[in-house]
């Protein structure tokens, strides 16, 4: 009896963590979609953050705040490096290039023996707490809401609607593209480090194409009229498999159908509300 209760608690806790971490990933997706870029590199940045964090904890034993900072800065540096050549691409070309990026890092992790190679890293000590995860999520969410209601939010929405017109209004397009990519990489990196420190194990195949599409679907389902949309989307998509658990074998089928129907009938997302842009 006690063992069962413990089991339920354990399951419950991991879902609570996932909702918060996926919320941060959803914001990482939001920041690039908000300026009209389709980047699928979030999973790769998450992986870089997860590996950075796990290595800093396991090999160097650094305190967790420093680990988190490192997990934000390393993906940010990678974003700065790849941003130059890739941000000249737009639309589906950028998506393809960033999918390629994910594959490059997967293969890198598989062949990197110091980081466990194909087996990944295990026995990562548990450092995250629900308080920390949700605290960060709320800080980021409030930050994006504040940013949205300013000249920066207007410039971002202007870019999404019409980049040429935005440039003529004085929006420095290359700087905004780079800033969005770097911010996105930092958020994904932090989410990666948090997930590594609550799940105790990471492997090179956790951050591939599947993960990239899942993160994109958070924003598609939620809608990008405000940062709340993607976070709602990630919450729904994280909880849905749990809620549908009684359906047993039909669970994944129904899960998929709900997503398809939502995208078909709510093309602007579950939360189509568009936030105001004046501060």
């Amino acid at each position: 009896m006690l063992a069962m209760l413990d089991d339920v608690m354990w399951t419950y806790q991991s879902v609570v963590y996932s909702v918060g971490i996926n919320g941060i990933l959803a914001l990482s997706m939001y920041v690039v979609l908000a300026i009209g870029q389709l980047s699928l590199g979030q999973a790769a940045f998450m992986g870089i953050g997860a590996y950075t964090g796990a290595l800093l904890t396991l090999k160097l034993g650094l305190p967790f705040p420093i680990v988190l900072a490192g997990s934000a800065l390393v993906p940010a540096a990678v974003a700065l490096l790849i941003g130059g050549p890739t941000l000249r691409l737009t639309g589906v070309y950028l998506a393809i290039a960033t999918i390629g990026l994910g594959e490059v890092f997967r293969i890198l992790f598989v062949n990197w023996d110091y980081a466990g190679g194909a087996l990944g890293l295990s026995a990562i000590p548990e450092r995250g707490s629900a308080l920390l995860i949700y605290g960060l999520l709320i800080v980021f969410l409030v930050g994006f809401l504040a940013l949205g209601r300013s000249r920066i939010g207007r410039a971002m929405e202007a870019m999404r609607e019409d980049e040429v017109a935005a440039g003529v209004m004085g929006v420095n397009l290359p700087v905004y593209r780079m800033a969005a990519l770097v911010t996105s990489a930092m958020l994904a990196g932090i989410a990666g480090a948090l997930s590594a420190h609550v799940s105790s194990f990471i492997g090179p195949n956790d951050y591939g194409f599947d993960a990239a599409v899942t993160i994109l679907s958070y924003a598609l389902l939620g809608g990008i009229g405000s940062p709340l949309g993607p976070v709602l989307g990630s919450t729904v998509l994280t909880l849905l498999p749990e809620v549908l658990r009684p359906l047993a074998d039909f669970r994944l089928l129904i899960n998929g159908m709900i997503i398809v129907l939502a995208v078909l009938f709510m093309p602007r997302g579950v939360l189509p509300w568009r936030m105001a842009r004046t501060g």
Partner: protein
Amino acid sequence: MTAMPSSALLTATGLTRAFQGLLAVDHVDFAVQAGTVHGIIGPNGAGKTTLFNLISGLLEPTEGTVSLDGRPIERLSAHRRAALGVARTFQNIRIFSEMTVLENVMTGRHCRLGAGLGGILLRLPGFRREEVAAKEAARAHLAFVGLAEMADRRAGDLPYGDQRRLEIARALAAEPRLLLLDEPAAGMNPAETRALMPLLRQLRERGITVLLVEHDMHFVMNLCDRITVINFGRRIAEGTPREMRENPAVIEAYLGTKATSRRGRGAVPVTTTTDALG
């Protein structure tokens, strides 16, 4: 007409743009005097919009220079030119449809706003003051073009003529020294076009230099201090509206050597042209 000031705000020298060998703009020289309304006319496909793109920074010239107040700007990106005081509207309206009318105009002010990231995130007083001032300025520009009542409407829901005026308000929000208007009267009804003329005259009185491309000859002839005529990418004439009416090269460009129009859809109707030029 106001007196003609003597200093040139915008100067184009040998301005050329080739598209795969086709010279859309071919060694064009012209100068726009500060404080004037300057018109560019020419048949469809003459290179007028390409010229605008070269001035506003959407295209780089193959050859030649563009200078604003003597400073070469032809290699600067569009946002740098906006900061230096070049604003424009588009022939095919490019408003931000999902935003409100007021937000559109405030976006136009982007190049004049400087609140930092910290100020924005922490809602510091400096940022708040700047936003309030930007909002007030935007409302004033909307009132100027007659859209004050529409401030909170979704921009994409406005009728066509109102969208054109919104684009002008958005461009004015950048506090430009040089305002480029690409066919401001296109798609407007005669009453709207008539209402636009005093508006642009007021801009001139405020000291904003206006460079416009327009097909409505009555509009151009009555409003402009000077006119540059372009055909096949080349400048074929320049002068006052009166001079252009009598210029044989201009008459030929518009009417052909025979008095029948060879041009297709959207060409200047021959009757209008004859009225205006004759």
